């Protein structure tokens, strides 16, 4: 298939509040797209709509060749999501959490896969500790492991660097780069201009629910100026 994500006139309204308006987005397979934008721009809403957690008010979303209608259960096996919530169960250990998701996603040989993915994010000896004892950064790393446990084709990562110390952040960059090299499609939102543009094939700016700008990532310096201009403009 040509494109992993095809969003047409995507809109999301929460009663009176407009989260997204008229978003047209096409993400080819294998592309790494970083979306920037000020707080409240709709980045999380966009990720949630793509992750099938939220239902668009208007417009359509096609993921991996499948139109997202109300019954989109199967497509979720191919999506990995990292968001502000960890989606981890505090009373269970990291291993139990990862095993649960691995089994739900029908991963073959779940025990081995859990060990592999825990190794990837360097959970180390904390694997059998309850998640509620974890620090913020450790929770985030475990959440990333959870998102990767079923080897998804599409990664939707909402501000994945938040809460990570420099070492963990560098590790995440490696993980994302490896996923990208392996052919996964990645859509990431971030406040980190440097890392976001380094990793990306294309960069975009979301402002007040609309896709204000999108361009190839190669020309970073121009983009930074563009971004600042768009954001300050939007604040007037």
């Amino acid at each position, binding site marked *: 298939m040509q494109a992993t994500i095809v969003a047409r006139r995507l809109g999301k309204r929460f009663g009176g509040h407009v989260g997204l308006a008229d978003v047209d987005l096409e993400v080819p397979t294998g592309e790494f797209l970083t979306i920037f934008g000020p707080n409240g721009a709709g980045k999380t809403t966009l990720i949630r709509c793509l992750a099938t*957690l939220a239902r668009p008010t208007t417009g359509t979303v096609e993921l991996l060749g499948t139109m997202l209608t109300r019954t989109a*259960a199967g497509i979720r096996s191919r999506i990995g999501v990292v968001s502000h*919530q960890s989606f*981890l169960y505090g*009373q*269970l250990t990291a291993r139990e959490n990862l095993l649960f998701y691995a089994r*739900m996603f*029908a991963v073959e040989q779940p025990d081995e896969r859990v060990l592999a993915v825990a190794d990837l994010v360097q959970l180390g000896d904390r694997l059998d500790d*309850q998640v509620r004892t974890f620090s913020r950064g450790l929770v985030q790393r475990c959440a990333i492991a959870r998102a990767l446990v079923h080897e998804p084709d599409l990664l939707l990562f909402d501000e994945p660097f938040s809460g990570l110390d420099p070492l963990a952040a560098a590790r995440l960059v490696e993980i994302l780069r490896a996923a990208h090299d392996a052919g996964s499609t990645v859509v990431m939102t971030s406040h980190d201009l440097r890392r976001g543009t380094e990793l990306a094939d294309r960069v975009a700016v979301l402002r007040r629910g609309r896709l204000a700008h999108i361009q190839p990532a190669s020309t970073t310096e121009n983009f930074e100026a563009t971004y600042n201009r768009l954001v300050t403009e939007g604040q007037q």
Partner: protein
Amino acid sequence: MSAARRIALVVAKDLRGELRTKEALTSTIFFSLLVLLVFNFAFDPGTRDLSVVGAGILWIAFLFGSILAMNRLMLDERQDAGLEGLMLCPVERTSLYVAKCLSLFLLLTTAEVVTLALFVVFFNVPVGGHFGSLALVVALGTIGLVALGTTFATMSVRTRTREVMLPLLLIPIAVPLLIACVETTGSILAGRGLAEELHWLRLLVAFDALFLALGYVTFPALLEE
């Protein structure tokens, strides 16, 4: 992988988490015990026919204990966004309803068994030969509470005034269930068994079936954002 297998995984996960902390279970049991205690002082059991009043006391303890349990379970889900984690999985939203109902049912019946034991001890109520009938009534009543409670708790946790929203929604709608359960339990405690109470049993079954069906069908609409 079948839906049944996934439901089983979710229920196992819920139970594992609950057994680890036992928070919801112990607080429910203690709360039910407190209700029994209050009623002992509110009514003098000596001057009342216990088989009549006893059924009411028991079901009030069950009802308020279950509301506590529902609030607790749903609140945990909300904090870690656990229910949303399940929504990321390739499982139908309706299956999630079944899983949540099952988890809640298992939790509640465990608490109810303990509450019933305490009730029998404190109020000296003979249950004797009709234990099977009592188990049936408690099971049917709990199913109804669970069918409605899962729906309403999922809603109320996402609203303001959440603690009061759940009982406000649940109790008026569950009145027929309560009436049926109290009447049949009263018969059992009085030693008459369920012979004359078949219409109540039928009402319970109809109630359970109706609200399980409605809850099942409407659950996806609740989980959308």
